[in-house]
């Protein structure tokens, strides 16, 4: 499903962010990505989200080599990804419904179908009934769940979450993690970058640990 083969990423002014990273994730596998700030977690996620290209090596997603992918094909591949951010990245001038609907509008799905799927996604994250609210009227936990609903509304094959619980209290964090576990059970691959050692040990999934751009531990 997702594999890194001898991947290097070098920034012109910041030096090497990733060096010789190798790992593989299967379909329906869930894993944590850890490491200190600046260890390369965000860079690694950016390579998968096609926000950056690797300097060397191969990043393979569903049989596509992301290191050589053309600009024009990127939007179509991104439609199979569900991205979740620490700062939610919601559009604050649009309702919850419109925020969650965005990935579907982009594809050009008809109105009834959008409505049905947005409601289903909001139901899954426990926000049904808040469609007409604006993000800033919601709590941090609720905003994060809007972000999650937006990530799953298009039934992605891979969910990438960058510090999804960074702004949440422990109870909410666990709730969010259990939600990810549910997605894993229906065959979605999930990769979560997090600092939260407690949660990692509690859930007991595979951990990819980065240190100064090197993949240190790759334990199951």
């Amino acid at each position, binding site marked *: 499903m997702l594999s890194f083969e001898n991947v290097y990423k070098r920034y012109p002014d910041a030096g090497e962010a990733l060096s010789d990273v190798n790992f593989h994730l299967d379909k329906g596998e869930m894993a944590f990505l850890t490491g200190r700030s600046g260890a390369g977690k965000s860079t690694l996620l950016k390579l998968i989200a096609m*926000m950056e290209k690797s300097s060397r090596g191969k990043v393979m997603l569903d049989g596509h080599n992301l290191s050589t992918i053309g600009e024009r094909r990127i*939007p179509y591949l991104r439609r199979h990804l569900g991205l979740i951010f620490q700062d939610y*990245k919601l559009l604050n001038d649009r309702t919850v419904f419109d925020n969650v609907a965005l990935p579907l509008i982009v594809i*050009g799905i*008809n109105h009834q179908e959008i409505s049905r799927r947005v409601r289903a996604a909001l139901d899954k994250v426990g926000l049904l009934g808040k469609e007409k609210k604006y993000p800033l009227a919601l709590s941090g936990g609720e905003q994060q769940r809007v972000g999650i609903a937006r990530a799953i509304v*298009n039934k992605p094959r891979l969910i990438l979450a960058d510090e999804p619980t960074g702004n949440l209290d422990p109870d909410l964090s666990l709730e969010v993690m259990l939600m990810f576990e549910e997605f894993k059970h229906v065959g979605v691959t999930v990769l979560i970058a997090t600092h939260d050692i407690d949660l990692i040990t509690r859930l007991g999934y595979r951990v990819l640990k980065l240190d100064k751009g090197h993949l240190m531990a790759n334990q199951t």
Partner: protein
Amino acid sequence: MKHRREKSVIGRLGEQLEAYLLNHAHGLFSSLGRLCRTPFTSAMTILVLAVAIALAGGFYIMVANIQQLTGNLETSNQMSLFLRDNVSDSAGQKLAEQLKANPAVESVKFINKQQAMDEFKANSGFADALKALDSNPLPSVIQLLPKNVLESNDDINRLMSEFKQLPQVEFVQVDMQWVEKVQTIMLIASRGVMLVGILLGFAVTFITGNTIRLELHNRQDEVFISKLVGATHAFIQRPFLYTGFWLGFISGFLGWLIITIMLLILENPVEKLSALYGGSFQLLYLSFSEFLLLMMIAPGLAVLGAWGVLNYQLRLLKPQ
């Protein structure tokens, strides 16, 4: 459930088309709504564009009006022989008769000083001013029409220099020459219109482009997030292109309105002036087809400007 999955290909294509059209309609109206939500900024941009359009269109219609005036001038080979001041009426009349005998001459008409004065008084509208003059400054003239066989310029010129050598003649003027001069001036003027039009067209394109660039920066988050959920450039730039369209469309209409109002203000005095000269000059307005053309060119240029900027900027805007 099974029914849903077996939806025909045409049915699905139809749904996609419906979604696509809905998306366009949404872009069209939401961009208009967005312009209305920032009325001051939008009004400033639209006014600047409208003034540029009105300048180009106004210059165009001005030249068209003058052209209408000069277009009536016939290019004839009529010559005017202005006689020396000391030539008496009878001598002038005699000369005219002599000239008529010339085989190259078709017809001759002698106008003495007094006739010339009367004609000028009647046509110029300066009757009162002329009263103040002690003596008649106008010369006697022999108007002469060469035979049609003298079509070429060389023949005309030969005839002209022949007449010039007559002792009674002060100078000779061929009407065709000044008609040609006027027409050449008009040619320059219409070239000028074209150049000014191109220049102001560039202005419209770049002003719109810059406005769209600012708009794009104001909505950077939206662009980033749309990119991250898999939006293509075509999708992202659509609402911005529609914004460009509206800017061009509204300012095109406003530009037309400015031109029309200016012409309405000018119409009365122009007609008065025309009446003073005994003419029946009708002020030209932009015709319906010219209006339509304007309403296509203005949005066209605006969309072009928006498209150019988007094409360049969207590639630079990468989500962080």
